[in-house]
């Protein structure tokens, strides 16, 4: 290649690099582990929160000079994530932290990455390829525990409505199946409606509106939802029910739902109905968004030669009316002392996921989840 053509190419390259980014140069920082995050679509509160916690973990003083983290988005497209992981391996990744779009479609590419010595860590959802490290909750346990709570709350009798997640995914399948097995054991529990909630409060509202178009709230005695209890409570209040008449709801760990669980009359700064304490009968569980941060931490440990188990099953974060407790500031220490709901003045989005505490991750607290700032 002649000098002039090289110069031309170099000029092109610098122009492009300067035009698009400023950080490309820092990628080769010496002595740092090159780690990539391949997340799924970012059009979703949970995903954004988890990504913030990964970034906060990387910025924490214990890791900041060990880790060079780059974040990429694959969208909802598994094919794209395959390509992305390949590109990451090519770019010299030492470890890749993944929110896997599909538990199976990535197997080949993950195996290929492992073969090249790259550590692959999947958070929240699983990758079935044996060489990958998985960090997630037991989805079947989540379905079973919440269903059992609801059955107990209803004394084993009543008509219930289910709102499920995204059909065709393993997570939804495992949770729903486990819950239905529990309900099947109680012949007096009847499932009278089943809607696809796509793990979204907004979809839960449209689906519940459709169900209640032909069915009065009074004919339903309980709700089992993967996301949407906050919305369901709001809808019942709109329909003229009082806080005491709210149906028991087994569902997600959104902060709005947690605030509603606090006994009515609790002093809460800048609360406004329906994002306010009403003593709603609830069990609240979640796939915790800190799993991404923990995955990064474990990835660094693995790179440093420590022994990390292939499968980390996170304890299922469960909060009921008996255990719900308001946080004042949301530091990790405060959460360690048992608080699990955040002031609306701190978290303005009620759909925000409140299960961010893990004893394993003192590096990240509320600010990590909100804005990607680590604890001191």
């Amino acid at each position, binding site marked *: 290649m002649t000098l002039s053509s090289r110069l031309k190419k170099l000029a092109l390259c610098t122009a492009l*690099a300067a035009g698009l980014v400023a950080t490309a140069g820092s990628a080769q920082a010496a002595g740092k582990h090159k780690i990539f995050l391949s*997340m799924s679509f970012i059009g979703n509160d949970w995903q*954004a929160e988890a990504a913030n916690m990964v970034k906060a973990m990387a910025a924490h003083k214990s890791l900041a000079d060990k880790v060079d983290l780059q974040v990429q988005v694959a*969208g909802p497209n598994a094919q794209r994530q395959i390509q992305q992981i390949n590109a990451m391996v090519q770019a010299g990744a030492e470890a890749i932290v993944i929110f896997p779009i599909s538990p199976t479609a990535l197997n080949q590419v993950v195996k290929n990455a492992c073969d090249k010595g790259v550590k692959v860590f999947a958070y929240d959802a699983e990758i079935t390829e044996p060489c990958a490290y998985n960090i997630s909750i037991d989805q079947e346990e989540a379905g079973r525990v919440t269903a059992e709570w609801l059955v107990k709350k209803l004394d084993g009798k009543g008509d219930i409505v289910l709102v499920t997640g995204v059909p065709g995914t393993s997570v939804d399948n495992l949770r729903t199946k486990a819950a239905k097995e529990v309900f099947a054991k109680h012949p007096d529990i009847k499932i009278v409606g089943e809607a696809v909630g796509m793990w979204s409060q907004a979809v839960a509202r449209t689906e519940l509106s459709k169900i209640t178009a*032909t*069915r009065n709230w009074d004919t339903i005695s309980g709700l089992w939802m993967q996301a949407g209890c906050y919305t369901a409570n709001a809808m019942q209040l709109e329909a003229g029910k009082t806080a005491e008449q709210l149906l028991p709801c087994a569902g997600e760990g959104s902060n709005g739902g947690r605030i509603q669980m606090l006994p009515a009359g609790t002093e809460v700064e800048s609360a406004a109905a329906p994002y306010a304490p009403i003593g709603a009968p609830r069990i609240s569980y979640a796939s915790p968004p800190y799993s991404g941060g923990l995955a990064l931490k474990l990835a660094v440990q693995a790179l440093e030669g420590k022994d990390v188990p292939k499968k980390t099953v996170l304890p299922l974060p469960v909060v009921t009316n008996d255990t719900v407790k308001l946080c004042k500031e949301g530091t990790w220490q405060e959460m360690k002392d048992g608080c699990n709901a955040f002031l609306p003045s701190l978290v303005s989005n*009620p759909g925000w996921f409140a299960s961010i505490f893990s004893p394993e991750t003192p590096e990240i607290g509320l600010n990590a989840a909100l804005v990607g700032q680590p604890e001191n």
Partner: protein
Amino acid sequence: MSMAAAAPSSPVRRLLATHRGVAVAAAVFLILIAVVDLISAGPLTYFDISFLASGGATSALAAIGQTIVILSGGFDLSAGAVISLVNAVLARSMDPMNMEANVLLWTLVGMGIGMTTGAVNGFFIAVLRLQPIVVTLSTMFIIQGVTLLVMDKPGGFVSPSLGTFYLGDAIPGWLPMPIALIGVVLLAWAWLKNTRLGTAIYAVGSDADAAAAVGVSTVLTRFLVYVIAGGCYGLAGVFISAQTGSGDPLVGNPLLLSMFAAVVVGGTRLGGGRGGPLGSAIGAYVLMIVVNILLVLNVSAYYSTIAEATILILAVLAGSISRTSTLAQQLRVLGTRLGARRAGTLVSQLRQDDQRLAIAKTRKTVEAAAKPSFLTRNAEILRYALPAYVCFIIVILVTQAWLGGAILNPGYWNSLIVLSSFLAILALGQGTVILTGGLDLSVPWTIGLCGILLAGMVKGSDVALIYALPLVLLLACFIGLINGLGIVFLGLSPIVMTLATNGLLQGAALLYSNGTPDGFSSPMLRWFMTGKIWIFTPVVLFMVLFVIFAVTLLGRTAFGRRVYGIGNGIRAAELSGIAVGRTLVFVYMLSALCSGLVGVLLTGFSGQASLGMGDDYLLPSIAVVVVGGALITGGRGHYLGMLGGVLLLTGLQTFLAGTTLPYATRAILFGLVVLGAVVALRDRRN
């Protein structure tokens, strides 16, 4: 002299001119790959190329199939679903003990499944003459349902022998198998193109009537096109099965939109008659390599959709730069106008007073002909609008019989109208765009961005709503203005422009909200969507006014007449003095305004705004318009028909949500009902 110099280069030029799209796509691809090569750590090796080859192969194969459909003037929304189905069937039926499954046999199985679904599409589209977009939308739902019946969660097993074959090398060290596979498919197309069928495909896509007049069997051509395309999707499904080694019932669905982008980047004209699969295959690789570019440049996640949208627009613009391009024409027209203004010969500068010759009034008055009856006058509207209403009534009756509490329950009607309101508003915007022969794909993130901005500004205060609402709607108009200008002045096809705008808006929404939108709707807005005046929610009363407004706008105003005029023939509209460009810009502004309004109402309905809140409204907004009797190519349709489509779809979904049928069955039923509704809409044979 100049003649002599130009003569030898003219065949080359002609070749370049006819294959400009492919040439530009190839050039873009080469530039991108050079960028990757330069910026990434090491030089590109055969190994990297082989990775790239397999990464883009599924999209490329599917895009080839889609291109053939588009060349014939069709449209296929079921492509992604077919890929998932093939993947699920293969992973479900292969024997996990058999590591050496027969590659040829399973490839044929996959292609056979694809061709069968293609034959179903082809039957409804070619033989029953239904509109491709709504047939394939229905089959998409049906196939997705069937896929979930085959496999309800990811899993299964695909023999490694498929992977070894399809991801291996055709010539070790020189030619990766995926490239060879795409090459074989393209060679097959090159052969087909020169047969009678190949000519017929281009002929039907260019002008179906002309093709029929010269003796081309349009029915057979259209039918075969969908079968061939189905084969390509089947092959893509086999490839992704080989690549992933297992099954996932959702794997192919997200490929759909990028498939259209690949076709467009590859220089094929949407609407038919021009382009070819080679460009689309290259287009698919262009889109795939963007992933690598974003990675090596470390572009922030929030900017990735913006970067993609920019590449899409630039690639398409580059493909159309020439003296005859719309941009060049618009510039010339602008120059002429300026010249005319200076010379004082512009029409608006001439004398405006009445200059008709005075004609003496004749004495004889003609007897006014008897006014034709209402039925005669509105026969066409009724014929196309009624089927949706008939089906809607059936759905209501079934709901009453199955679930009870429908017909005599005011709460049911109230819920139905509240839930319909979003689609009914979108139907006006999308419907008007479709009446002009366009399509607005920027609906999802116009809804999303407007909702997020409104919630962010309002933060629960009714006072803030007073200024936030007009501001947000103004922004929506601005979005529409951008769409309109891109389509009219840059000459981009509506699908490309609005798809790109959608990406830009998504980036904007992410940047504004920093990933988690905050804020919530004010009490008044919430009351508007969920409160009660007597037994009705306020929005129900608003919808009554909205429907009157929509019917008047399209049926009784000059604007409405211009819209129909453009849809019936853009040339004829121009010649009859319609300001086509200006009208089109207004049409896209109307559509964006409707989307913005839906964003506001959804925020009120849910109490807050969320990212992706508009995603579920794109395909339904198109479906209701077509189910309501509008012609996707423009010029025919009535708002009341579209409203019938909205009621039918919402009523059907409400019924299905009330049952405890599994999701797979619901998806299949939904597809069947939509298909059944449009069978009644089919065009009569001439």
